């Protein structure tokens, strides 16, 4: 079976005033159909750029230097803006944003905003669209779904707004949904409900979910597969269970050790993510790595395989 989404060796650079920033430098993510993959990394590692590349909304000055984005057997990178709008965005790839308040226009009713996208991207009449939205909002456990369409964003709580946007992402029945840290702004109890809901929706609506987060706790709870990104490179990829049991890459181990469940004391990771303008030679994690060897500073390590079955980019495994 072909994967729902396969990002293969993606390289993206952005021209800036200070030079060329190599934001993504060999990122690979595979999302098998019907599964949930978590993409984890610190801020500045390229998680948002990856999402923007898949959606085809890279900032100006960005260029794709290599790699492919396979989506249902087609390479998204060769699509024109018009093709993306007509054939991919909303209709086949849904998006759940991080900040539900920013994503909603305060002066329009919820129904107006959600139906707008369906008018362009979903088959059927307006009446069909309303019926589907009411069904979805009911499924999202939004109280009074029909009435909700007539209300404004400020009349909903943060958790409810996130439910509205999940419904919006599913409105045109896409096969792939991309979520950008959708629960970071929420309370733990609300976050928990949203995560449970997402899990159910994946099975119920037959979608595949790419979930970006920096919280390993959320990954452990929600995701099937995991892809750890550091400084624009995939450093470890495998199933969540195998990586949580036996993390192989030093960066994955360091990140996990920061989680309060695993930490003996608050250690953190010394240093910062290297700037995309000036990446060090050799392994990008070497300057912060606790297990660094002379070989690490010489060449970029090749992809190897750890005993856990995960693909790891580290000299210890290549």
């Amino acid at each position, binding site marked *: 079976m072909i994967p729902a989404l396969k990002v293969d060796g993606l390289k993206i650079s952005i021209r800036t005033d200070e030079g060329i920033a190599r934001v993504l430098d060999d990122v690979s993510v595979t999302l098998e159909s019907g599964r949930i993959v978590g993409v984890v990394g*610190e*801020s500045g590692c390229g998680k948002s750029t990856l999402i923007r590349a898949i959606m085809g909304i890279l900032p100006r000055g960005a260029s794709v230097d290599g790699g492919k984005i396979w989506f249902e057997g087609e390479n998204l990178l060769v699509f024109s803006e018009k093709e993306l709008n007509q054939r991919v965005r909303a209709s086949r790839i849904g998006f759940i944003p991080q900040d539900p308040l920013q994503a909603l226009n305060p002066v329009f009713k919820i129904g107006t905003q959600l139906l707008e996208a369906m008018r362009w991207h979903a088959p059927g009449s307006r009446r069909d669209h309303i019926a589907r939205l009411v069904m979805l909002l009911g499924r999202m456990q939004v109280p009074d779904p029909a009435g909700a369409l007539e209300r404004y964003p400020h009349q909903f709580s*943060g958790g409810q707004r996130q439910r509205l946007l999940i419904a919006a992402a599913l409105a045109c029945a896409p096969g792939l949904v991309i979520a950008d840290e959708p629960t*970071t702004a929420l*309370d*733990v*109890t*609300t*976050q*928990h409900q949203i*995560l*449970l809901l997402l*899990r*159910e929706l994946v099975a119920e609506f037959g979608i595949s979910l790419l979930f970006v987060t*920096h*919280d*390993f*706790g*959320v990954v*452990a*709870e*929600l995701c099937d597969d995991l892809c750890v990104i550091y400084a624009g490179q995939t450093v470890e990829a495998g199933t*969540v*269970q195998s990586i*949580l049991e036996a993390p192989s890459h030093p960066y994955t181990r*360091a*990140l*996990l050790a*920061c*989680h*309060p*469940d*695993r*930490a003996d*004391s*608050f*250690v*953190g*990771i010394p240093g*910062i993510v290297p700037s995309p303008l000036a990446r060090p030679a050799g392994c990008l994690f070497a300057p912060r790595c606790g297990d660094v060897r002379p070989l690490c500073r010489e060449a970029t390590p090749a992809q190897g395989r750890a005993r856990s079955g995960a693909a790891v980019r580290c000299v210890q495994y290549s």
Partner: protein
Amino acid sequence: MREPILSVRDLSVLLGGRRGFLRKTVLPTKAVSGVSLDLHEGEILALVGESGSGKTTLGRTILGLQRENAGDILLDGKSVAGLPPDVARRARNAIQYVHQDAGAALDPWWNIGRTLAEGLLIQGMKDAAARMERVRAMLAAVGLDPESARRYPHEFSGGQLRRVSLARILLLQPRILILDEPTSGLDMSVQATVLNLLLDLRKRFALTYLFISHDLSVVERLSDRVAIMHLGKIVETGFARDVFARPLHSYTRELLNAAPRLTGRRTSDGLSAVQTASVGAARRA
């Protein structure tokens, strides 16, 4: 047992509401209702609750930014309640507040040195060179380069901004710090270093923390005692290890179960077999 450094007795705070004359009467919301707390010297007390539970209002009231409607606040055994806001703020100078959003709390047009020195100026430190000396020493104490006094807020990362806002407050020589979600919005790796700094500063400057948070895993590691707040009331308080091992109130249990854990997925009712067993044990205990 020693006298608590700060003591809150039956504190109530009403927010909003308006008298109806030719318009609808709106009843005020009881944001904090009948809260009592003791804060002992040198301890870390965590105030945990969801948004809307009244934890920030409680913090602001203790600080003196919000007037209490009923109840008493004792600082070193002396009552500082019932005062008008400006008098209250002066009487509670030993209590300072670290904002949740460090970036928004700094003036983008002022360099860090000027922002930090302003507090010293307000406190009556006239000598500019001496002010700058104190600022540079404090920046070093929170783990920043003293030269960063010349830089502007946008040049700092999220973790560094937390350090700047801590330095600003510590210059005022507080004894009690109210920390409002000091690690929200930070990466896990940065969060750990900020928490480490907080523990280190507490020792070095003999501080007492009131730590407002909804992140239970952080609270469990950092705090000595915990107070769980729900709908303006404190529903459970105790030593952190007791509360986390044997939560007594149903709301506390619900909060604990909702926190994402590395141990993996739970069944749809939100409890894993292990957790169900431990909760069951807690009920019997």
